[in-house]
């Protein structure tokens, strides 16, 4: 039984990263109509920025949680202003190819300087150790990752679904021309939205650094699964991305316990099934 709970916890942690990353992808797709293949590289950059802040600037994990998403978010906004904005109105394929190219360049640069092996990032003192829950041993840091990710996901959902700013975002997703004719600076809002999505990826990178180490290809390994999560949840659906992210993490964890051979493929099998039955994804809407 201990092993089952341990796998459930691993599933929830993976689900946290899936949810944060797929949420960012959903926000970006909803607003910019771009399938952001650079998302994995930006997640990796979040982890590296945390590593640099600690090792070069002596800035600890807690500040990195705030600063890394801002720094990588600004990098994302520069990408949007200088490159992505020119793709407005073009076929999805162009955005996909451009962001894939950006991902390869960013990963290549980091690999050139840091190789492929992982760099260590220590768990902050306040989150070391674990708790015996009776039925299982819970490492504090892992519990923190799950709870913090859930809070960030729900805060993002609240921002988009329940605030005036979110209403601007949702309206601009439907009809950016009209929203702009109401007096809202839509191009600036698109840039900030891309920054928000990228910031969420960087935040996931910081959270992941003490668990998975800091590696140039850490995002490339994860992003394919995250795209499967987004397809299952439905492109552009905020709550769908969050729920599907956590749920698929748990399903993956349970598969590791009950049928380990299928644990690496279960997400893709589910993706195929969902595409066959509901091509727009579980919570997505038709184009």
């Amino acid at each position, binding site marked *: 039984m201990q092993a089952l709970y341990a796998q459930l916890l691993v599933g929830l942690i993976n689900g946290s990263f899936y949810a944060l990353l797929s949420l960012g992808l959903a926000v970006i797709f909803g607003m910019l109509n771009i399938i952001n293949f650079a998302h994995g590289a930006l997640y990796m950059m979040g982890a590296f920025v945390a590593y640099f802040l600690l090792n070069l600037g002596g800035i600890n994990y807690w500040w990195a949680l705030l600063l890394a998403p801002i720094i990588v978010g600004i990098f994302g906004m520069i990408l949007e202003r200088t490159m992505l904005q020119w793709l407005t109105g073009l076929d999805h394929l162009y955005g996909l190819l451009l962001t894939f190219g950006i991902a390869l360049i960013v990963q290549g640069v980091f690999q050139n300087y840091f190789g492929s092996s992982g760099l260590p990032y220590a768990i902050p003192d306040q989150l070391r150790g674990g708790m015996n829950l009776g039925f299982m041993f819970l490492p504090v840091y892992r519990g923190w990752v799950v709870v913090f990710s859930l809070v960030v996901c729900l805060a993002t959902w609240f921002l988009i679904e329940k605030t*005036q700013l979110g*209403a*601007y975002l*949702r*309206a601009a*997703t*439907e*009809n950016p*021309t*009209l*929203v*702009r*004719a*109401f*007096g*809202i*600076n*839509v191009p600036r809002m698109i840039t900030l939205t891309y920054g928000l999505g990228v910031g969420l990826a960087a935040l996931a990178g910081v959270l992941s650094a003490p668990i998975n180490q800091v590696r140039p290809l850490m995002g490339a390994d994860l992003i394919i699964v995250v795209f499967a999560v987004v397809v299952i949840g439905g492109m552009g659906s905020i709550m769908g991305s969050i729920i599907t992210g956590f749920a698929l993490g748990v399903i993956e964890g349970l598969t590791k316990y009950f049928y380990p051979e299928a644990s690496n493929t279960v997400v893709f099998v589910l993706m195929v099934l969902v595409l066959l039955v509901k091509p727009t994804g579980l919570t997505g809407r038709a184009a």
Partner: protein
Amino acid sequence: MPDTAIAEAPARAASGGNILQVRNLEAWYGESHILHGINFDVNAGEVVTLLGRNGAGKTTTLKSIMGIIGKRSGSVKFNDQEIIRATSDKIARMGIAFCPEERGIFSSLDVRENLMLPPVVREGGLPLDQIFDLFPNLKERLNSQGTKLSGGEQQMLAIARILRTGASFLMLDEPTEGLAPVIIQQIGHTIARLKKEGFTILLVEQNFRFASTVADRYYVVEHGKIIDGFSNAELAANMDKLHTYLGV
């Protein structure tokens, strides 16, 4: 009569100061040249109607004034400020509000969110209680999804949301299209009341019987040009011509 003369002659008859001046306005959709030098004026406090057949260029004229059409040239002055090169968000913030033909109600927003969406650009917008006084149906449907409203209610919502913003110059694109006669009558009463409140309105209509109940002046658009203009008092005398222009 030359085009600019058409624009200026009836405008002088009106009492308010000149608020919008359009000169030699040309516009393109891609390679298609749609407007070929539009000239007209709107005075403060007036209701001016652009009449014309489908595809004449009425909607494109409104969109060009609003800055929505990418390629345009000529001159559009609002309160003596040139806006031909301004982006649509800046134009909106100067006090021009646009209600599109397709109404533009957002399906992902409920009625309250649709109503509160356009930001307040200046003081003097109608408060919510006055808006609900004009459109009582909306108050009862605040939590409904915007696109679940009837056609008439959607049109009311589309007009209501721009009244909040403080914009004093409203451009309404075919507000009666596809609506039942009783709703058209209600929209007419609303426009008349807005005029009394001091709003200036540029209306695009194909239904000149409706327009005649609210408009002070008319311009007829054909093939991307203004081909005639007259005041409401001259409407009866111009009826035959109008039938020919509109093909009715």
